[in-house]
């Protein structure tokens, strides 16, 4: 010992010295993946296997019956499941698009422009990283009631557009862009808007992808909005519907459990796909994520 062994962090290829890490990383990863694998198998189990004794982890005769039940099921007020799915997709798309636009615009101004309150805004945003949303559920409810957003479709969208972590990551990322690039564009007569649109946006795609994922997760999995701010069933989302499936059936009815498993699979898979597509960009962004 005592001498440098070369390339231990981020090694290029496999070496037997890495076995000790794999000895605990592999079992741990499998353990962490188990509940997710379980839900996949569970969603495809026919009725007799769902409640077989002893219960089985793997599925023997996979079937789509749970998904069929789920899609033909209607809520107690007669709203079909497809309506909730549509609401969720629509709301998620709106939040992702607008949170990217809003936070990249603000990030650009905070990073590359000079104006009053700039430092203050960023400082407050950094404090807001610690903001715990559910802590202020009550006053948030009152604010939303005052503005008249109760039962308004946009209550799904507006409160979720500001993600302090998102603005923080974008601003740190734009800081890496050399100022000379922007000054050169200014000399060529580019307006602030065209600098934002033509130079900044194409260069910060990794950060935008990260914000897209963060906002996707916050809106797609969101239950609070539907349960606190919406009273009309037709305007609620899939995550909420799923929650009612679980609590209504309370694990007792056989078909209910299958549907609950199928719907959690539908909830989870989009999360996974989006992250797999964007994971490299996310890691690029995270390299600049530090709070200094």
């Amino acid at each position, binding site marked *: 010992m*005592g001498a*440098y062994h070369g390339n*231990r*962090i*981020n090694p*290029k*290829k*496999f070496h037997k010295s*890495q076995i000790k*890490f794999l000895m605990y*990383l592999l079992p741990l990863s499998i353990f*962490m993946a188990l*509940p*997710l694998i*379980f*839900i996949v198998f569970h969603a495809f189990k026919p009725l007799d296997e769902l409640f077989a004794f*002893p*219960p089985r982890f793997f599925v023997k005769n996979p079937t789509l019956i749970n998904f069929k039940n789920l899609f033909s099921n209607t809520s107690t007020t007669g709203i079909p499941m497809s309506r909730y799915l549509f609401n969720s997709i629509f709301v998620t798309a709106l939040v992702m698009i607008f949170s990217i636009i*809003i936070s990249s*615009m*603000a990030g650009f*101004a905070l990073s590359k*422009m*000079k104006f*009053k309150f700039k430092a203050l*805004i960023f400082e407050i945003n950094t404090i*807001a*990283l*610690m*903001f*715990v949303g*559910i*802590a*202020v559920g*009550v*006053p948030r*409810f*009152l*604010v939303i009631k005052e503005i008249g957003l109760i039962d308004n479709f946009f209550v799904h969208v*507006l409160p979720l*557009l*500001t993600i*302090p972590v998102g603005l923080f990551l974008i601003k740190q990322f734009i800081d890496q862009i050399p100022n000379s690039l922007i000054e050169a564009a200014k000399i060529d007569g580019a307006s*602030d808007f065209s600098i934002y649109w033509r130079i900044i946006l194409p260069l910060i795609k990794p950060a935008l992808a990260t914000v897209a994922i*963060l906002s996707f*997760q916050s809106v797609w999995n969101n239950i609070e909005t539907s349960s606190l701010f919406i009273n009309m069933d037709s305007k609620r989302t899939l*995550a909420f519907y*799923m929650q009612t499936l679980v609590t209504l059936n309370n*694990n007792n009815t056989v078909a209910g459990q299958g549907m*609950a*498993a199928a*719907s*959690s699979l539908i*909830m989870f898979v989009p999360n996974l796909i989006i*992250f797999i597509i964007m994971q490299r960009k*996310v*890691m690029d962004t*995270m*390299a600049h994520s*530090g709070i200094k």
Partner: protein
Amino acid sequence: MKNNMKKIIEKFKVVHQFLSHKSPYLFVSPYVLLFITFIVIPVLAAIYLSFTYFNTVKSPDFIGLLNYIQLITNDQEFMQHVLPNTIKYALIVGPGGYMLGFFLAWSLSQIPHRLRTILALVIYSPSMTAGIAMAVIWRIIFSGDHTGYLNAFLLNLNIIEQPIQWLQSPDHLMNIMIVVSLWGSMGVGFLAMLAGILNIDQELYEAAYIDGMKNRWQEVFYITIPSMKPQMLFGAVMAIVNTFNIGGIGVALSGANPTPQYSGQLIVNHIEDYGFIRFEMGYAAAVSVVLLLIVYYFSKVSWRLFGEKG
């Protein structure tokens, strides 16, 4: 006179600056407006309401510190269950999850790229499930009769003789909450720490070994952590926020608020209990303020540890 002139000129400058360079304000205003509406005002409102009695029917009555006094001296559930539960849960899931996250990120950095990407994805993916929405999986696994997966498994191995009501039992609920939360806590902070470790300059290690560094422990404490302080701080803040944000999980798992004998009741559930079930909004607001102060305090502590400016 001279001073007044100066002030007027100052003011004029601000207005002038605003008019001639209004685009920065155009760029930040959508974010700032929404930020003020949905984050700043609710926090200020919580502070104001915490000094009032408010039941949503009549307008708030100012009662001074009564809510806080009530909370500290008279709220038995809070003092006997909610606060100790929250401290236990937060200490294990917060620092525990954070250290586990760093340890996993560091271990992952020691293996080749492709395998690392796959394992990182597996470890990260539970955090995407956002605790509450996925409580359904856990309710099936921990189901209380003999067809529950954990019960069947343990019965099979003859470890237990009777099926256990895992989620309804005050003895087990808290431990299950901690396991489930740790399982889902390898989120953005974990990814940031992984990226931070991978970006450390290799030559730093090389130089340190030449200077007499002997083993991996020293490597971690003298090179790795000091070189990625900003990411460590980001990870710490994320860990704290995440801990309190998924705090509602006890209610989601047991299906009841309050949880069985208050065994899994955390501060967040207490707020919901008073705010949305008993409609004592003023009191709920006081509990909210206490929670925000706790989060702020813990974040300040991590700032001390890893921040470059105090």
